[in-house]
């Protein structure tokens, strides 16, 4: 048995094969800490958290996890915290490592056999940010250490490479995969199953939330909930001010991504000479907004994309595609 694991900024998704089926486990990557001030408050809060997903820490505080953390944060007009930031373990959050370790152990579970194979995804080095906060190898080491502790033989692959394995079978694993996560946009150019160019940009769904939050004065969590509720089309005006801002910033994000892609691939030494126009496959939570794929295609043409495009297609299962690709990679290794 092998497993695939998508360790994302907004979602952690585990995939495992069950005969001719794939079982997915989805976890919303968020937490919210409530520190009671008195023993009476502790009892009242614990009663109020009945049926919610939470853990109790040694200092008496309650750590809500997943969707319940976001709901509670919105209820209190605050923002839920995340153990990950822009695709890697957050250095800004003091509790990030401990909480990520706990979540991963709970979602993945102990290995069913000794050294069971698991492939997890990591982001590529960004082309638009250079600072010490972004340390992919440290993030990779943390995830590997956690998985090793629960009995796995863990290997990592690039997030967009995993997407190509899940979606490019019909084109002999030749084309481009773009994984639009919450924290980052990862890109992989693949030729016959070999990743030739991989890179990322640090602006994606969270950037839209943050900018829309600044424009409307609403907390990020509220913007995120409204955005995920749908009811807007990218680039079109909306009566709801939050969704109007989200729609505008989405268009700017797509334009930025298309320009970065075109710039990064123009004259790239490792870029293969494709014989035929290529397939571009898009996945990830951020790509689920109505009009995302069409707008990306339009902006790529406008920004003089250096390769001929056959089609820009959306994954059939944008939230699970990367985890599926990781599972395929794990099965190839096993």
């Amino acid at each position, binding site marked *: 048995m092998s497993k695939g694991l998508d360790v994302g900024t907004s979602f*952690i998704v*585990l995939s495992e*094969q*069950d005969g*001719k*089926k*794939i*079982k*997915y*486990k*989805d*976890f919303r990557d968020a937490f919210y800490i409530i520190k009671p001030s008195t023993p009476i408050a502790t009892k009242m809060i614990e009663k109020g*958290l009945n049926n*919610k*997903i*939470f*853990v*109790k*820490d*040694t200092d008496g505080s309650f*750590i809500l*996890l*997943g969707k319940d953390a976001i709901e509670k944060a919105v209820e209190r007009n605050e923002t839920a915290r995340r153990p990950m930031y822009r695709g890697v373990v957050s250095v800004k959050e003091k509790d990030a*490592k*401990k909480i990520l*370790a*706990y*979540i991963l*152990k*709970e*979602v993945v579970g102990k290995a069913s056999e000794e050294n069971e194979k698991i492939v997890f995804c990591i982001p590529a080095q960004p082309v638009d940010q250079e600072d010490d906060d972004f*340390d992919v*190898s*440290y993030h990779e*080491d*943390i995830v590997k*250490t*956690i998985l090793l502790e629960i009995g796995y033989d863990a290997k990592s692959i690039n997030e967009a490479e995993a997407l190509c*394995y*899940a979606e490019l*079978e019909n084109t*002999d*694993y030749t084309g481009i995969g773009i994984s639009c996560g919450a924290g980052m946009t990862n890109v992989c150019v693949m030729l*016959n*199953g070999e990743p030739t160019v991989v890179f990322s940009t640090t602006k994606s769904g969270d950037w839209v939330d943050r900018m829309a939050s600044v424009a409307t004065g609403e907390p990020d969590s509220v913007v995120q909930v409204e955005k995920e509720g749908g009811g807007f089309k990218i680039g079109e005006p909306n009566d709801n001010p939050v969704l109007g801002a989200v729609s505008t910033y989405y268009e700017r994000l797509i334009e930025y991504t298309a320009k970065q892609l075109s710039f990064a691939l123009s004259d790239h030494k490792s870029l293969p000479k494709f014989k035929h126009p290529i397939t571009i496959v898009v996945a990830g939570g951020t790509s689920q907004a109505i009009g995302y794929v069409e707008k990306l295609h339009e902006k790529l043409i406008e920004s003089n994309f250096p390769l001929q495009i056959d089609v820009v297609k959306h994954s059939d*299962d944008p939230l*699970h595609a990367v985890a*599926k690709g990781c*599972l*395929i990679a794990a*099965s*190839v290794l096993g």
Partner: protein
Amino acid sequence: MYIELLLFLLICWIQITVFIVGIYIGKNIISNNIENTNISTVKKEKNIPKNHINIDEKKVVLDINTKGLEKKYDSIAEETIQETDISTSVNKLKNMKG
């Protein structure tokens, strides 16, 4: 006669001036540059280490302790099952990668 003498003296004066300027340039400007070149060469030689050894500054992962967190739920994640057979993808990739 007078004009010829004057021209002779003028040429002599020009020659002496050019000679003095030549000595000045040779002593102060060219020799300084030569000295400077020597210094920078030496400095460069000093900067090149004989055996370049790097120290591994990669951040280490220390113990990540999750003990003491008391679980208060039944299931942490949402489960979905999909009818998808990945065996053809796996075989195709195995063949392609040799």
